[in-house]
C-alpha cells in the first residue's frame, strides 16, 4: 500500500547550471560535429564544380509516415506510460528546391516540419493534502524541423535515389491543457545530425516518393533537467507528395 502526500516548507532555489552543462555536452560533441561538417563541406564543393542545363524546381508538399525506430521506446518510464510503446504516426509538410543546373545529377534541398502524436494519453492521478485525487491527462509529442540535403546517385534505375546529410531540431513536449487545475508544458529542445535517403519519381509537376531519415541528437537544452541516462535517436520512414513549380 503506497500513499503520497504533499505539504509546504521553506527551501532555497537550486543553482542554475544550464550553461556549464551545455558547454560540457558541446565539447563532447565537437569531434563528431567537425567530422560531419567537413563531410557536408566537401559534398558541397564537389557538387559546385559541375553544371548542366536543365530547369530547377521549387516544390511544396506533405509527408506522412512512422518512426521505424524511436529511442523513446527504450525509455522505461515513457514506455510505462504507453505513450511511445508502439509505432508512432508522423505527419508534416515540406518545401524545397530541386537543383538541376549546377550539378550533373539532381540535388534536393528541403526544409521539413513533422509532428508526432501518440495514440494514447498519459494519465496521472494527483493526490494532495488540500484536495482529493484528480486525474490529469498528458500528451507526449515530438516536433521536428530539419534541413535535408540529398544528391541523386547514378544507379541507372527507373526510380531516382538520392542520399545526403540531415540537420534537425527536435522539440520533445509533455503537455497538459485545459485541466481543472493548470496548464503544464515540459519541453526539451535538442539539435541533431543524421543522414537521409530518398526514393522518388519526378514527373512534370509532381515529386513523389519515399524517404528515410536517421538522426541522432547531439546538443540538449536540458534546463536543469537530469538527462544523464537519456539520448535521442530516430529513424523515420515517410511517404511524400510534392507539387513542383518550374523556374
Amino acid at each position, binding site marked *: 500500500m503506497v*500513499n503520497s502526500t504533499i505539504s*509546504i516548507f521553506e527551501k532555497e532555489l537550486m543553482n542554475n547550471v544550464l550553461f556549464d552543462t551545455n558547454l560540457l555536452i558541446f565539447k563532447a560533441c565537437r569531434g563528431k560535429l567537425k567530422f560531419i561538417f567537413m563531410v557536408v563541406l566537401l559534398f558541397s564543393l564537389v557538387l559546385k564544380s559541375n553544371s548542366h542545363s536543365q530547369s530547377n524546381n521549387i516544390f511544396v508538399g506533405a509527408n506522412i509516415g512512422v518512426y521505424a525506430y524511436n529511442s523513446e521506446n527504450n525509455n522505461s518510464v515513457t514506455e510505462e506510460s504507453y505513450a511511445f510503446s508502439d509505432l508512432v504516426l508522423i505527419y508534416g509538410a515540406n518545401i524545397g528546391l530541386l537543383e538541376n543546373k549546377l550539378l550533373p545529377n539532381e540535388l534536393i534541398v528541403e526544409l521539413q516540419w513533422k509532428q508526432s502524436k501518440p495514440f494514447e494519453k498519459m494519465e496521472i492521478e494527483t493526490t494532495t493534502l488540500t484536495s482529493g485525487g484528480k486525474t490529469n491527462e498528458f500528451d507526449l509529442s515530438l516536433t521536428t524541423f530539419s534541413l535535408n540535403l540529398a544528391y541523386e546517385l547514378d544507379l541507372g534505375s527507373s526510380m531516382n535515389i538520392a542520399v545526403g546529410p540531415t540537420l534537425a531540431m527536435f522539440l520533445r513536449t*509533455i503537455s497538459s491543457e485545459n485541466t481543472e487545475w493548470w496548464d503544464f508544458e515540459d519541453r526539451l529542445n535538442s539539435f541533431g545530425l543524421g543522414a537521409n535517403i530518398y526514393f522518388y519519381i519526378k514527373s512534370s509537376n509532381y515529386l513523389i516518393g519515399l524517404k528515410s531519415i536517421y538522426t541522432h541528437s547531439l546538443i540538449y537544452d536540458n534546463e536543469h533537467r*537530469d538527462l544523464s541516462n537519456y539520448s535521442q535517436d530516430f529513424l523515420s520512414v515517410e511517404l511524400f507528395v510534392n507539387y513542383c513549380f518550374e523556374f
Partner: protein
Amino acid sequence: MRLLSVISLLILVGCSNSVEPLENIQTTVYFSLAETSDVEFYLENTYNTKVFSVSTKLPAGTHSIDLPVDDLVEGIYFYTLVVKGVDGNNYQITKKVYFRNA
C-alpha cells in the same frame, strides 16, 4: 564550425522552455510492510534517469521516505517500490507523480 555551433545554440535558447526548479515543497511516500524485507525505492524523471534511489532492510510496520524534490524541476516523475518477499519473489509497484510549484 563555430558559426554552426553558435547558430544551433541560439536556436535552442530561442525556443527554450522555462521549467522551474521546485521550491517550498515536501513530498513523503508512506508504505507498510507485513514482515521484515529488503526494500528498494527509486524516483525517475521522464528522461529515463533515476534522480533518487535508496535500498535498505526494514522491519514490519509503516515506513516513510522523504523525496528530495528540492533538487528537481517541475514535471512528471515515476516512483517505484520494490520489496523482496520472504518467498524470494520481488513485488513492485510504480506510480506516476506530478510535481509543481504552488
